[in-house]
């Protein structure tokens, strides 16, 4: 683990880019849409489809962890309101 951590470089600092769909202060939708897109992408393309991971990176960067946990729980219970 320390080896992997030491390999972290300045160039590795990457985050979700500016998205022209969400140019405002309010970024709630950017988070939610990326979360829905990821799971929809996985549903259509299967678990191991690499391009889906882009959405995963984005929603991990943008969404508060508590929100993701709550939505994961809702998907498990089948009460998630979004269209996946």
């Amino acid at each position, binding site marked *: *683990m*320390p080896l992997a*951590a*030491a390999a*972290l*470089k*300045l160039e*590795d*600092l*990457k*985050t*979700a*880019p*500016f998205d022209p769909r969400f*140019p405002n*202060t*309010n*970024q*709630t939708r*950017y*988070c939610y849409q990326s979360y829905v897109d990821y799971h929809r992408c996985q549903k259509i393309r299967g678990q191991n489809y690499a391009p889906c991971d882009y959405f995963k990176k984005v929603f*991990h*960067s*943008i*969404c*508060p*962890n*508590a929100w993701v946990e709550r939505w994961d729980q809702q998907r498990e219970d089948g009460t998630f309101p979004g269209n996946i």
Partner: protein
Amino acid sequence: MLTWKTLLLQDSASPLMEQLSFFHDHTLMILVIITVLVGQLMIMLFFNQFIHRYLLEGQIIEIIWTILPAITLIFIAIPSLRLIYILDEINNPMITIKTIGHQWYWSYEYTDFKNIEFDSYMIPMNEMKNFNFRLLDVDNRIVIPYESQIRMLITAADVIHSWTIPSLGVKIDATPGRLNQISFSINRTGLFYGQCSEICGANHSFMPIVIESISPNYFIKWISKMIEI
């Protein structure tokens, strides 16, 4: 940081705050000129013995004192609008940091690489060291690389809070169920202090914010350390 006898704005530590300071000085200059002019006119009118034979129907002077304030207002409005749009500009950020306001502490999440989460509580007076600032220092500071674009995402878990760093010109509400974004970059290394700015309950005064601005290389080291923990 705000100290005793800091009557005006704090020293700026970001390009945006620099512009805000310039705008403040510019506007204050216009205000002082107007105050002096009006004050002098009033004093002059009170303390003389003259009688005005043509007091009413002064078309020309009425036109002048209507047009002149309009022109003066333009000189305030245009830089103000310019600033408002600059403040809204989103440059491509290097890292995203999430801030969640709780009753009564802030918690932070760095999730671009690995999942780093920590809470930031004020240091109570009985645990304070000699070098700590009372009601202002926290146990876990937010560490930020300087001269890099930072995207701050702010939300709250219970009631509305407000996340503020005056020397960076940042103040944004933390609203439950909503993610607010603000981007900034810091000019230099150092510690920057702020306090919750929205009345959020009994301990509203006791949830300060401290940013530790360090060089990007040290930031990488810090991140690596945090991942190990």
